């Protein structure tokens, strides 16, 4: 009887621990979901695609890595997210190529030949009429445009370091590159953003 009682209490304790782990995962996902969504949207520039990518990343983390230490979740989640973003962009490139071959759209000879986002990003000073310029005076709007215009790796490094608050080592894990590359991408991103947003700061 005694051992039955202790077994029952162990059962309850294990159940409580499982619930606690689920609660940890929920807290983690709730904490990162909005930033992750906006990072995905900066990269793919489409709300629904960004939502699909975030959902996919969340499910992959939960299915594949929920039993890993909670301290590893952040780097793992963003690694998955960046991979999903890259997959999405590759698929989009292929789709565009097929459409172009069929005479329906733009073409790119390879993923690496995608037009430089900095070059193609809308430049408020160049493109906007006075009314639009007034609208773009909003700092948030200008910032989003500037970030969306960064090359992909700079964008990743900047957002993970500056917004997600990861250190260089963690960012390198999430991006799957060396710490030196992270520093380079981050530094270039900061300078590009300063150059573009300088007038908003003053």
């Amino acid at each position, binding site marked *: 009887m*005694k*051992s039955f009682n*202790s*077994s029952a209490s*162990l*059962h309850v*304790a*294990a*159940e409580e*621990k*499982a619930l606690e*782990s*689920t609660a940890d*995962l*929920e807290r983690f*996902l*709730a904490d990162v*979901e*909005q*930033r992750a*969504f*906006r990072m995905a949207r900066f990269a793919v520039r489409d*709300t629904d695609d960004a*939502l699909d990518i*975030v*959902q996919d990343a*969340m*499910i992959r*983390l*939960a*299915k594949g890595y*929920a*039993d890993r230490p909670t301290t590893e979740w952040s780097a793992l989640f963003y690694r998955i997210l960046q991979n999903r973003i890259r997959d999405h962009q590759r698929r989009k490139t292929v789709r565009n190529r097929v459409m172009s071959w069929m005479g329906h759209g733009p073409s790119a000879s390879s993923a690496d030949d995608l037009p430089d986002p900095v070059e193609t990003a809308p430049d408020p000073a160049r493109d906007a009429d006075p009314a639009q310029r007034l609208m773009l005076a909003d*700092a*948030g709007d200008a*910032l*989003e445009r500037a970030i969306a215009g960064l090359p992909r790796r700079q964008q990743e490094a900047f957002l993970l370091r*500056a*917004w997600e608050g990861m250190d260089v080592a963690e960012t390198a894990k999430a991006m799957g590159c060396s710490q030196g590359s992270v520093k380079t991408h981050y530094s270039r991103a*900061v300078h590009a*953003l*300063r150059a573009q*947003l300088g007038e908003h*700061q003053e």
Partner: protein
Amino acid sequence: MSGADINREGDDTFVRQIKAVLDEGNANLDARVRSRLTQARYAALAQAGDRPEFWLRQWAPAAGVAAAAVLAVLMWPGARQHEQPPDEALNDLEIVLDGENLDLFEDLDFYEWVDADAEVTRI
């Protein structure tokens, strides 16, 4: 303070400003996006709950402790007092493992009666 330090400090201030603007942007996400993110989170949590390893990981320590507790109870000196002598225990085990013998023990009353009847006949 060197020029590099001034630059770094300027960058830090700039990055802090950007972070504040980005954080503010989260508050402006529309209801549809928030709702989709919540649904995505619950879908992910459901998947985590379905994983056998996820639950196994939760249960493994408890199962280990339970097994140790059972062993401790079995090995406890007080528990040994109620043990049967080893020979009897082995006999019981043989009975349990042997289906035919089990039938015999189920019909023990009948065999006792046959035995008694045979003795009466002999007398």
